[in-house]
């Protein structure tokens, strides 16, 4: 679990980020407290053709049939400069009401794909339940599947491939869950997250570590995952 603002690891039950103090309160103060409505495929930048939109809707329909609990949605837009894509995803999942979503598909179960045309970044925001099913590595592979089309500006095929990859990951996870309980998966995930909260190794320079984190938090993501992989043993 990473802070969507500073990308530093945080505890799975933390109310605020230890490093920057970010929380939903800060997010509301920055972006508002209102509930917004969005479509399942929200093309704010008007980059999708009707054919792409229709095909994407068909893909999402079939995904929703196969995974009745999950909520698949897409936001495609040009975000302001002062808006981080990760913060926006965090705020949107907690304030958006997806049109047409059934009661059985709460935002906890959402997989929200966000594409910012301004900064040329793409990301996946996960609800609490989705975090149990999709690991960071799997989410990154999902994004990489769509990257070639995103680079070429082919948004329709890009998103189709992205959601196809999501379906494959979830299907694989369903097969895994037949063998082991979800609590075990949750514990594994927590253990992985706890591993990133180890105390610093003796002799390491804290200043150097902080400088490294500040540098990675300030610069937008370029060609890599949003989750900063810290060296083992360093907070």
């Amino acid at each position, binding site marked *: *679990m990473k802070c969507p603002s500073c990308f530093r690891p*945080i*505890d*799975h039950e*933390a109310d*605020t980020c230890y490093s920057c103090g*970010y929380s*939903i309160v800060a997010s509301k103060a920055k972006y508002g407290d209102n509930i*917004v409505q*969005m479509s399942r495929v*929200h093309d*704010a*930048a008007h980059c999708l053709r009707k054919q792409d939109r229709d095909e994407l809707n068909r893909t999402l329909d079939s*995904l929703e*049939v*196969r*995974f*009745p609990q999950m909520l698949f949605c897409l*936001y495609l837009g*040009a*975000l*302001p400069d002062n808006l981080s894509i990760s913060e926006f*995803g*965090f705020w*949107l999942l*907690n304030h958006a009401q997806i049109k047409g979503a059934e009661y059985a598909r709460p*935002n906890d179960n959402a997989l929200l794909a966000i594409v910012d*045309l*301004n900064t*040329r*970044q*793409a*990301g*996946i*925001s996960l*609800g*609490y339940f*989705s*975090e149990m*099913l999709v690991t960071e590595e799997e989410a990154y592979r999902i994004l990489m599947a769509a*990257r070639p089309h*995103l*680079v070429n*500006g082919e948004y329709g095929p890009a998103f189709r491939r992205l959601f*196809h990859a999501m*379906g494959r990951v979830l*299907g694989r*996870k*369903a097969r895994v869950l037949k063998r082991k*309980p*979800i*609590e075990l998966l*949750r514990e594994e995930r927590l253990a992985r997250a706890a591993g990133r909260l180890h105390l610093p190794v003796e002799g390491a320079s804290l200043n150097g570590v902080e400088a490294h984190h500040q540098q990675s938090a300030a610069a*937008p*993501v370029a*060609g*890599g*995952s*949003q*989750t900063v992989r810290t060296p083992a043993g360093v907070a």
Partner: protein
Amino acid sequence: MKAYSLILLLVLAPAFVAAAKLDLPEWEEEKEAEAFPLGIGLFPAGLVPATEEEPDEGEGGDRETAGASGEDAPGTEETGAPGRDGEAGEEQAPAPVPATAEAEAVEPLPPIEGDLRNWYFGLAPVEFLIDPQHLLTEQKSNDLRRFLEFHSDESNFHIYAMIVGETQEIPEDVSLEELHADWFGENPVVLMVYFRERPEKTRLVYNTSVQSAFDQTVFDRIRQNLLREGGATENAPDQVEKMAVELSIQLYWLTKLLERQIGDPSLADDTALARAATNEVIAPRVLRQDAPALFRDESTLRQWLRIAAQWAVLLSIVLLAGATSWLAAWVWRRQSPGGGKPLLFPECEISPRLGGEFSGGGFVGMSFELGDMGGREEAGEGFGL
């Protein structure tokens, strides 16, 4: 002056032409003219109508043609150039050709006697094909001879083919059975006497030992098969060739039966075996399924193993095809996002994080570069919601 000579020439030209006379060849003696009527040797007599309006030849229209039956073809006197006999403008239909002219064009074959008889029945044949009258074409003769030689190399039961004309008959005092015994003794040989274009008159002569080994129905069936093959075509060389090939096939199975009988003489009295043998020569290939006991050379165990191996191969092919199709369907189901039955995930306890009601900030991002999209777009207002 020149003009007058030209005019004179033009006026006198028709007279010159009329007076001109071609120097045609003529017979030295009138008798020769009568002996060689028009078309002799080339056309059947009566085909070319006799004409009487030819004063140059010196004969009337009642000239007798060689080989004619003496009947004038009706209307022959009337044919000729229209208007010559005084009936101007009246055209006559050509005279019909008498039927006897076409029949007499085929030279009848002489009866088998004298030298011809000696050629056929005088000495034992050296070659497998006996055709002293050359009733078959040279190419077909060579082909048939080569086939009979090939058959003799492959089988102990030899075939000798004797070609006779369709109108000829075997002399009554000639016994083909005695000749067969005299020529070939107890060697397994069949003599096929083929009457050209009359396959129904074909005769087959076997050794007495072979004939006594089987029922007459066996040989009748063989002959029926030969006639069936011979009746498939009307061309004589093709008929004898087809019959020879069929006889070779029939003799192959007859040889098999003979060998089996030699191994177990009691089989000769077995009516079931005789019946099977009868059926066998009718359709030897089919009989292998109907009467497998006759053809079972291998032991029972080997046969069962062979059958089991065949079934195993067939079953493996079917299983492989089924597995391939199932695999393809499975892969296609997996490829399609909505393929397969609905999947439900178990519920679990979720702890909120960062105060978020639905999400705790879980996020994975990536950067991409657009192709020719240019630089950053101007930021819009809000988020477009």
